């Protein structure tokens, strides 16, 4: 194991580079394209057994750079994603345009976000993992805000609140464990392996107090993984970001959560059910949704559900599947969102019901969108096919029937909402009369790039490099997984065919005009503000009143009585001489009586 001190983790290039971008003025956009590539080169250039430590807080050694099994696959795709995103977000018309001004904030934030995500994958201990985890939240909030709309402002605010609370839950859990470890005399309480809760024989978590740490950590991660009901922030916030912002957002937060879950909770049975819930939930809401990007946002939840389920299954196959699927998912989901983003950028419309018939004028966008849709639906010869099926396979191998059935059904559902609904409503269906051209070159390039990746990864024989960097690579001479078996391909095609039929059969029902579908974000969109407005606020106001009274009115009253000038003439009158004498006599008398009584 080589140990280099002073070498920063690869993600730092993106973080710092991103922060410097606004200062580079005209050079910025060019440098922005280079930075992710540089990072990627760095990720691949450093030896796999390198660890870098850094002293921290005077007592810890943070391992800021270490390769964990899933590190490479996640770090790679994050860097690639950063590149494609940067390309997509390029301020084509220069930095002084509206888009350019947004770029100046959005892209640095996105790079901080992406870089932190990469750093999370390289974190060799829980503290550095957490630090970058929090940085991601900061970066992503800024990305949302960059959209510059009021809705984005509010959504970003809610997003940030949810994530900071998730973060503090995670932190509390980490510290519970750290404290316990320190008590047990462990020398390196931050080391990641102490936190491998899922490692102990694929057992579920007990609900005992002793597991508070694990529960809190799991809760914190699941917030980021967008598991319902903790995850409604996703559909709430992502569609409010700018067309390029959403692309970035779709990639990092949930996938980082998947990465961390894979590290810490692999094999935790609970996650199977969480994953299944997410898969189903995502579909249901995506079908009900009208906003094209919100459809895709729910589809993220659904897809992450597959991964979480895979992590819950916990076998090598399942974990490989989850990792690979994360890889593929980032690509095609970004592609889909780029496609949707292009439409949004060119038309300014976001609702399915307002769109349609765009295939006339946006052929490239349409094509790329369909490729993404096919990939997400695991159509053979696309990336989704070679990755998602590993999870199904693992479920089957482990004889977890519920998981297998649900995942299969969900696959069909995915095709229903993302594979057909999105392209159908946006590009075909009735003609909305809109005739926007394809988006600018950079957006097209980004889409084409990712469309190509989707296809390439699905081509038999070309997915090898991906399989090679999975957490549990195949032993020498063995095949990790062979997706292209005849039954598998036929099964998948059947499934997709019937889903497609179902879609068109149900089309009248699916034509939704609903503008927004509230789910658990009801809690913080309606309930919490309601509670705040009608319960807490009055209480706080009452407190303020109380304090005002205590420190304002009472002193004022005292002041009024004490300081106030005597207005009446009689107040200037002192005790007359006679009065004084009476007082004196009275005093004497009182004293005599008291003395007499005492004696």
């Amino acid at each position, binding site marked *: 194991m080589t140990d280099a001190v002073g070498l920063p983790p690869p993600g730092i290039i993106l973080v710092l580079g991103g922060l410097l971008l606004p200062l580079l003025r005209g050079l910025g956009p060019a440098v922005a394209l280079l930075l992710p590539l540089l990072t990627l080169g760095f990720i691949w250039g450093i030896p796999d057994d390198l660890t870098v430590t850094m002293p921290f807080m005077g007592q810890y050694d943070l391992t800021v750079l270490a390769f964990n099994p899933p590190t490479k696959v996640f770090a790679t795709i994050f860097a690639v994603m950063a590149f494609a995103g940067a390309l997509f977000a390029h301020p084509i018309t220069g930095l002084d345009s509206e888009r350019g001004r947004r770029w100046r*904030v959005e892209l640095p934030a996105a790079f901080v976000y992406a870089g932190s995500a990469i750093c999370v994958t390289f974190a060799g201990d829980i503290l550095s993992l957490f630090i970058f985890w*929090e940085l991601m939240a900061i970066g992503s909030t800024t990305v949302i805000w*960059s959209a510059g709309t009021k809705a984005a402002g509010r959504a970003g605010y809610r997003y940030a609140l949810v994530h900071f*609370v998730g*973060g503090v839950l995670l*932190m509390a859990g980490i510290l519970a464990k750290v*404290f316990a470890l320190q008590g047990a005399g462990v020398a390196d309480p931050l080391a990641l392996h102490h936190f491998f809760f899922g490692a102990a024989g694929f057992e579920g978590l007990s609900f005992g107090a002793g597991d508070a740490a694990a529960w809190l950590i799991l809760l914190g991660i699941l917030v980021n993984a967008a598991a319902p009901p903790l995850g409604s922030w996703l559909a709430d916030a992502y569609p409010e970001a700018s067309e390029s912002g959403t692309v970035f957002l779709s990639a990092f937060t949930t996938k980082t959560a998947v990465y961390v879950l894979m590290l810490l909770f692999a094999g935790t049975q609970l996650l199977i059910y969480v994953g299944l819930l997410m898969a189903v939930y995502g579909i249901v809401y995506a079908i009900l949704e009208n906003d094209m990007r919100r459809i895709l946002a729910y589809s993220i939840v659904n897809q992450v559900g597959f991964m979480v389920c895979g992590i819950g299954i916990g076998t090598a196959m399942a974990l490989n599947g989850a990792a690979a699927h994360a890889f593929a998912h980032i690509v095609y989901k970004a592609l889909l969102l780029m496609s949707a983003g292009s439409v949004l950028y060119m038309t300014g419309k976001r609702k399915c019901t307002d769109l349609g018939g765009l295939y006339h004028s946006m052929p490239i966008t349409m094509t790329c969108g369909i490729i993404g849709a096919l990939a997400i639906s695991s159509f053979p010869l696309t990336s989704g096919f070679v990755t998602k099926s590993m999870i199904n396979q693992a479920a089957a191998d482990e004889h977890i029937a519920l998981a297998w059935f649900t995942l299969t059904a969900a696959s069909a559902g995915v095709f229903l909402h993302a594979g057909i609904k999105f392209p159908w409503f946006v590009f075909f269906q009735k003609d909305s009369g809109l005739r926007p051209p394809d988006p600018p070159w950079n957006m097209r390039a980004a889409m084409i790039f990712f469309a190509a990746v989707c296809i390439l990864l699905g081509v038999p024989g070309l997915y090898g490099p991906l399989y090679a960097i999975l957490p549990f690579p195949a032993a020498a001479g063995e095949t990790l997984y062979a997706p292209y078996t005849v039954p598998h391909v036929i099964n998948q095609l059947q499934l997709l065919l019937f889903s497609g039929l179902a879609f068109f059969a149900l089309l009248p029902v699916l034509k939704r005009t609903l503008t927004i579908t509230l789910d658990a974000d009801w809690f913080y969109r309606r309930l919490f503000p309601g509670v705040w407005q009608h319960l807490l606020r009055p209480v706080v106001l009452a407190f303020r009143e109380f*304090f005002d009274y*205590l*420190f304002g009115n009472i002193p004022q009253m005292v002041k009024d009585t004490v300081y106030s000038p005597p207005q009446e003439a009689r107040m200037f009158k002192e005790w007359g001489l006679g009065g004084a004498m009476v007082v004196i006599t009275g005093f004497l008398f009182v004293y005599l009586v008291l003395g007499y009584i005492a004696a």
Partner: protein
Amino acid sequence: MIHFDVSPQLLALYIPLLGALLISLAGRWPNLRELVTLLTAGVLLYVVAGMAPAVLADGFWASFAKAPGLKLAEVLPGVWLELKVEPLGMLFALIASSLWILNSIYSIGYMRGNHEKNQTRFYVCFALAIASVMGLAFAGNLFTLFVFYEALTLTTYPLVAHKGSAEAIRSARTYLGILVVTSVCFLLAGIIGTYVFTGGDMTFRPGGVFRRALADGSLTAPTLGILFVLYMYGIGKAALMPVHRWLPAAMVAPTPVSALLHAVAVVKAGVFTVLKVIVYVFGPAVLVRYGVGDWLIYVAGATILIASCIALFQDNLKRRLAYSTVSQLSYVIIAAALLSPLSITAAALHIAAHAFGKITLFFAAGSIYTAAHKTEISQLDGIGRRMPITMAAFTIGSLSMIGLPPTAGFVSKWYLLQATWETDAPFVLVVVILSTLLNAAYFLPIVYRAFFVAEAKPHHEPHQSSADGNFGDHGDHHGHDAHDHGEAPWPVVVALSCTALATIVFFFYSDLAIGLANQLRSGLP
């Protein structure tokens, strides 16, 4: 009466005093006056920093308990004005002396930029306040602590009342009123009570001074409890609810003063005193055993949450910051009240961490006022584009308040959360979680407004400040076009950049603060 000695702690006390004298002599020549201020601050930091290695050295603690203090004067028979260096005081002195330099730089920019009157008085009182802080930090016994505590109140009063306007005088009266009422009615009573019950023992020592009295039965648990209440509410500077009102009131002061109050001196003096009393007068072990301090956790927790909620309402930027301070101070108190080694560390660290973050926030608020004459949050739309450095610094400060990495606030929160597990205090855990939420809830909108909301149209009428708004009388006096401004004067920008940077640097290099805090912890029985 007074022994002249070159002990560094005495120097730390005399340097700012001498500085105050020189500043007042140099009052006619502003440049010279400011130079003197900066020089004094520099020398002070040099002297104070020079003391740190000795405190951090191994075995310091063992010698601390035995070593006699530096006795200055015998005020009453047996009651000495006494200075003694210990880790907590060292930490406090370091914070104050280092921030004084930055604050002075900032003051130069601010006071000149706003054409404030009576600047000499301002700098003199500032130096005197720092002298009081040094005395407070190195106080060797309760009596000395009280002396400098009161001195600090008095020397900061003219700063709060600086403007001399009706608003300023009234607020300064609230400031003085609450601080004096609490310190005289409760703190002094507590101190004299301690003196009576311990038979004249007021020296700070690990483990506290009450053990003998408790052992021989001359002091009972209820009385101990009363004494504890007297102390906790006597230290009004710690702004435990409901004696926090002076803090928002003091917002009327010029911003460097607010920074001084919130970050460098006054509130820090309060929580520092709380911590010192808990650690050295009562002793955590005694408090745990007799359980007289448990209520403090709940009161401090309530303070954190209520103050944060009130902060949500404030449209005036400085008021919001003030309530944030109230809430953050109770972080220190709640940590101290947990009475475990880790929590004491957390408390000490949070004093430092909050100092850097909050001073940045106030500097930013003052910078906005200087450059744009804006005081209300609702006026800040798009100001981040005009004043990117200021608002970036503000953002960093906000992150520190929320406790996010990579800022100072994270470090103390790390210890505090750990302490909640050490002491098995779910209430505190919940408070911290809710408070994180609330902190984010009231800081993020400001950041959002500044950077992401477009500036109002130029012909928009200046926002009428609310009734409780500070500086309300200024908006129309300066015929300043509020829409044509960039950053504040350079000293202001430099100062706030430095503190923002320090907030981040503290995250990476907190060794010194943690070392001192750990020294403190290692001394606990």
